[in-house]
């Protein structure tokens, strides 16, 4: 049962990823990415990480990808132009992909002590997860959140014009500038 579900959703995941690359319209690509995210959530669930699965759907599929589609809709981005691509990319690219994937696969297979999570094993409850997060891994957890906060502040600082060293020219007719 678990194996069947795994195969189905891994298939969805791969199909979504390939479709993302092949589609020429940005919104179709964004929706394919939603499919990938949601199938990944199901795979997490089958590995027993229920909270991670829910967070994946809420945060990635529900919030971040909505913003992606939002931007595509706002900019009304059209069809991408399809070029034939440079011949160098084709000659070097595909072998390079094969090499990188095989190196990664070898490392993962050879490495010992990666943990023994498998399909159809027990579920890690949210309680256990939060206990680990807030006791053993408290420092990395908080540092990561500070990192995200810094990224947000940086984005705001970059987006705010007219309050730094170069003030925007005030329109002659007294029109309000953005953000008053």
């Amino acid at each position: 049962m678990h194996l069947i579900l795994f195969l189905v959703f891994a298939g969805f995941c791969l199909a979504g990823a390939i479709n993302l690359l092949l589609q020429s319209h940005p919104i179709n690509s964004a929706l394919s990415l939603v499919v990938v995210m949601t199938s990944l959530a199901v795979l997490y669930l089958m590995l027993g990480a229920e909270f991670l699965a829910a967070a994946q759907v809420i945060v990635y599929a529900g919030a971040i990808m909505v913003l992606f589609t939002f931007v595509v809709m706002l900019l009304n981005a059209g069809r991408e132009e399809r070029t034939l691509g440079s011949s160098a990319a084709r000659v070097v690219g595909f072998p390079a992909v094969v090499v990188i994937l095989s190196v990664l696969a070898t490392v993962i297979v050879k490495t010992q002590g990666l943990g023994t999570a498998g399909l159809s094993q027990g579920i890690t409850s949210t309680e256990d997860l939060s206990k680990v997060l807030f006791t053993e891994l408290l420092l990395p957890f908080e540092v990561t959140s500070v990192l995200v906060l810094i990224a947000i502040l940086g984005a705001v600082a970059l987006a705010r014009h007219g309050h730094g060293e170069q003030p925007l020219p005030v329109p002659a007719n007294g029109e309000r500038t953005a953000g008053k």
Partner: protein
Amino acid sequence: MTILQFFLWSLGKVAVVTVVMLMAVAYTVLLERKLVGRIQNRWGPSRVGPFGLLQPLVDGAKSFLKEDVVPGGVYKPLYLLAPILSLGCALISIAVVPFGEPNVGPAGMQHLFQISDVNIGLLVILGITSIGVYGIALAGWSSNNKYSLLGSLRSSAQLISYELALGLSLVGVVMRAGTFNLRLIVEQQAKQGIVTWNIFGGLQFVAFFIYLIAAYAETNRSPFDLVEAESELAGGYNVEYSSMKFAMFFMAEYANMIMVGCVATLMFLGGWTSPFGNLIDPPQNIFVHALLPIFWFVSKVFCFLFLYVWVRGTLPRFRYDQLMSFGWKYLMPLAMLNIVATSLWLAYR
């Protein structure tokens, strides 16, 4: 229970719940039309059947039989996908809602009144709701119409903004119960009836009002129905939809209302338990014992829907910038304060 039995049992429950949900949607529409009619001093639908009770069925038949117009300029795959996504997401999340007491079914078939009892029930509901945004966003974009696009942009922005306040308002309840499992959340607050409900005994009334306001915005209902502000947008994201596709958006809105009412009932109002707690002994008759909780659950959800319609008939619409600044500047900080206060209280206790 073998896999086949489990499959059939689940399929039966899904069929029953879907039919009940669709009927509830149809009659919520009638409830709204009747109540708004009375608020405006007129009768509302009264011609079809006694008290207009057959009106929803006739409306449904009308939607089915109307000509289905697909405008020329639409992007067809997404145009067709959007209403399905909208209605699908609105109907799916009912799967984790417990309607009644556990352990009343025949042996081996527990959870008679819940399709699936999952540990992360609340998160499942929030996740499916957040996927539902795509239905509206894609409908507006794929219609290739300025008004639709504006409506859907408004809607997506509004849903994303108020989803935060909505999620945060539920955190206090989750902290008090210590679980995301809806059944356990209800059982945790049911000990003494109305006194220990989360809204009173759990000291979550601030959270309840934040939830109430955010829920109105989440379902695009008045006073936050800017998505379909007729005077500005000629109807909003569903302008280009007709016949059954329009009806699907319509049904999705009402299904979402019911869903939001169910979550409020489960989180704040004690779910299926009676407000009298242990003052009244549980009934001996097995059928009454099984059906009385359903009665409480349905009446609580009904009160919530009644309030929805009442607010719609009373309050005028917000302006869009008021809506956004209210959500971000007042509702969100208030929800965060509520979390801090609740955690301090729980730590002190």
